[in-house]
């Protein structure tokens, strides 16, 4: 199908499956691997678009379900889409809306037609079809839009997983057919198939035939064991076309990002950095600081040495301790810092791939974050070993 993006791999890691690329979208270039902050309602937690841009963010995520409810499709059409609506001139990605319905709403029922759910406004039954999702996402105007997929929990087993996989493929066909702006918006397919390698393989084969501009690995992060999670991711990146961007949905913890990049993933999104900011938790290379704790009362250091975000350039932990979760400014500052942290992490990952020292970066990253090797998560050790990085033994190897 038509594509409105350009995918240029500029460097490949000599050891792992990681790669550095430039993804050129209708609203400008995106350096990959990339982390995309989530602005659910068309805004990122009190941070202005200028501030987000100032952090070097090139692509942000909006949620179709939320924007469909408010401001609604009609208003989005009137004003010319979500970019204009929120004053954001860089790239946007939207999900299909299906996931929210299944996870947020009671009585959501999936039929071949679509996802049927109870309106949160008046309780009446509503139906989200692939066609409707496409229509909404066309109105939003996101640079990347996601197909409506049949979401099942990653803990589900049995025939339901296979049914969801086949239905997702059928819905992809309906999405492709209903997509009205393939020349300016890129539709990504979502690989389903649960934790079953055979189903994943089948799904990839079918979806690759549809030749969408990019692919996402879906149906994960639902409570499955991390050791199973990474194996699915790795299997998918092995089978997916290497000339297209690969997006792993809903991943955003620092070590997950580093591991998944090593496994060959290019794009990530996560609400965690800004959500946790709200509770006064600041992310750093050496771990999370819960700034609400009294031990920071007399800690006159910035959140993170060397961070050039407005919070670290302006305030001490001692002062932030007095305002986090009390004043909205405290929340904004930590949100800014956490977003800066995520984006910086991805920049560092990317630079190290370009300079072909990603394995060394991984070693240092885990040492900074977990200190003791005994504390390294076993799944991460296993995952990295599968791409030739031995966290336990191989620290001194190139």
């Amino acid at each position, binding site marked *: 199908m038509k594509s409105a993006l350009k995918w240029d791999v500029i460097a490949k890691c000599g050891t792992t499956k990681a790669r550095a690329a430039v993804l050129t979208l209708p609203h400008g270039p995106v350096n990959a691997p990339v982390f995309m902050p*989530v602005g*659910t*309602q068309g*805004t*990122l*937690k*009190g*941070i202005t678009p200028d*501030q987000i841009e*100032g952090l070097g963010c090139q692509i942000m*995520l909006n*949620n179709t*379900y*939320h924007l469909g409810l408010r401001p609604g499709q009609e208003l989005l059409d*009137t*004003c010319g889409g979500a970019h204009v*609506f*929120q*004053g954001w001139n860089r790239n946007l990605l939207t*999900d299909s809306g299906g*996931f929210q319905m299944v*996870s*947020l709403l009671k009585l959501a029922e999936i039929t071949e037609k679509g996802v049927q759910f109870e309106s*949160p406004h008046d309780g009446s039954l509503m139906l989200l079809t692939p066609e409707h999702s496409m229509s909404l996402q066309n109105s939003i105007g996101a640079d990347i839009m996601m197909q409506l997929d049949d979401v099942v929990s990653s803990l589900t087993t049995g025939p339901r997983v296979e049914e969801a996989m086949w239905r997702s493929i059928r819905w992809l066909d309906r999405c492709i057919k209903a997509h009205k702006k393939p020349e300016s918006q890129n539709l990504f397919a979502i690989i389903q198939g649960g934790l079953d390698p055979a189903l994943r393989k089948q799904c990839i084969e079918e979806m690759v035939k549809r030749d969408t501009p990019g692919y996402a690995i879906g149906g994960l992060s*639902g*409570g499955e064991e*991390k050791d199973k999670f990474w194996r699915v991711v790795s299997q998918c990146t092995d089978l997916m076309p290497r000339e297209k961007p690969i997006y792993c949905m*809903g*991943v955003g913890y*620092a070590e997950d990002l580093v591991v998944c990049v090593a496994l060959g993933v290019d794009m990530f999104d*996560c*609400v*965690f950095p*800004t959500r946790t900011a*709200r*509770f006064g938790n600041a992310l*750093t290379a*050496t*771990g999370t600081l*819960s700034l609400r704790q009294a*031990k920071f009362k*007399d800690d006159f250091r*910035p959140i993170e*040495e060397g961070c050039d975000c407005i919070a670290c*350039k*302006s*305030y*001490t932990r001692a*002062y932030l301790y*007095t305002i986090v979760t*009390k*004043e*909205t*400014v*405290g*929340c*904004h*500052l930590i949100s800014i810092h956490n977003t800066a942290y995520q984006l910086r992490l991805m920049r560092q990952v990317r630079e190290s791939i370009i300079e072909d020292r990603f394995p060394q970066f991984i070693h240092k990253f885990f040492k900074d*974050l977990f200190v003791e090797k005994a504390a390294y*998560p076993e799944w991460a050790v296993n995952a990295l070993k599968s791409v030739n990085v031995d966290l336990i033994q191989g620290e001194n190897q190139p």
Partner: protein
Amino acid sequence: MTSPLKFQIKQTSAKPTRAGESARCGTFALSQSNTAGTDQQHVKRTIETPGCLMYSLKGAVPHLTPDNLRQQSFGGVNVSLEQILQTDQPGSFSRWPETSPIPQFTGSKFTLAEYLRLQDLITFCDLRDYSYAAENFRHPTTPPTRKLASNTDNHAVLSTPKGIRQLTLDDYLKTVRHYRPDVVVALADTIAETTAPNEKRVRKSLERSLKWLDQILLERAGQDGTIEDRRAEEEKKRRRERKEKRRSAAAAAKAAGEQQEQDQDQDQEQGAGTSKEKEEEIYIEPIPTEPWTDVGLFAAVGGAHLEESRIWSAQETAKKEGVDGFVIDTLSLSALDKDARLKHVQTSLDHLPADKPRLLYGLHAPEDVLEAVAMGIDLFDTSYPFQLAEDGRASLYYYGPRPAGQDKSNSKTQRSINLWDDEHGDKFVPILEGCRCYACKDNKHTRAYINHLLKTHEMLATVLLMGHNMYQYSQFFILVRESIQDGTLQEKSTAFLATFGKEPTRTLEKHPNQIIVEAALQKRNQRLEGAEEGVVGVIGMGASTVNTPSLGAAVGAHAEDVEMEDSESKSKKRHETEEAGEDGGAKDEVVEKKVKKAAVAESSS
């Protein structure tokens, strides 16, 4: 003593608007030695008067991060001591760094300005948040307690974020020495009651405030201000000791009745000794102090609703050498209506020197500002634009001729609009045509978008509203100053009132749409509580072996919507829970989990 502050009156209104006083405009700045510093960050701004100090909460201007704050042109910030002083300060100042720990300010002394990232603004430090003098003033998260236990001769009572605390004169002085704000208001016994205080209470408060002021002035000049107190204390102590001695001597005498004769002699001797002691001069070693003459000192003048007291307070305070400016107390007038309050303000002003700046709290709506300016008030604060933003309101008022292009956005010549109103939902126009604030400029953020942000409970709404309202307030003051200079203050003030009428009384009621949105949020959080429990156990960093999300919205979107905590007791409880947990990133999942649970429980309770 040379003042660190420079107040220069450029022009006094040619046409006095009231008998006695008249409007004036000028500049309020720090003298050269206090603005030392080489880079841009350290150059202090000047406050043009009549002008504003920015209102702050816990040392931060509400909703505005430092970068957004710098888009405003105000020259100073008002910081309430009661909101930033920790319960264990000044004790914990032992760990206060000598020089700034912020990398970009390395080398400069670590003062309140460095601590609060206010290096380029005049830092004005008062004791309490007196904005509560304004009608129906509201703060969304932590309202300070207004009515406190009474002050005593030894301390004033403050409402800090961690509860009520007593601030002794000594603590106050130590705090000022560490914080080194550009201007500090002298410790005073302010009357905060909502009912009119009686004469005795008023007199007592004024005497106490004046005595503290004397002591503060001495300390500031490097002398021991509390020496008289300590001498009196010593005298009391010795008297007590003598009494004790006599009593024990008498008891001993009783026990040894057989040696009566001898004892009588002793008694005589003792009596002689006592009278000798009385004559003895009590010498108290003064505590040498570092002068802090680089800090400007304002003094509060009060007197509640009693004219004589107001006059006396103003006259006595004005006599003190070294006072750089005055805060006109209106908190003790809260039982009165606006006109009566203004009358009493005038009484104070009539007895203050004309060449020093005067600050007024609590009368902050544009037409009140105009009246106060006409009376000769120089400094206000920005609590008015803040309150509007809290209500979802955006300013549309203008002073003087209507600015070009504004007829479109303000055809009904409204003072402000409420962005919660449904009518703005489809208005893809700026709040105010021609406004140069971040939101309005280039139609970046429309009324429809702000309406959407309010209805989705997103914090960017107040960020944008605050920025716009602050910008409009600063524009208003610029035009007011111009009208003083060109002699049109009275005329334009009359026109303003004719156009916009009086500020409607602020109610504490929420907009109907806000009530709906908040109720829906609460319901949603309640409904999701069960689902939340299911995943909460695995939220966390690395150590977790089970993969949960992050997934774009499922857990995230609603957890984000959980209300910010608003109750001190709740926060305390959660705080304790949290402190029980381990620290540090990877090991922090317990904390995150607990915080999350608490937040969910809270939002549904």
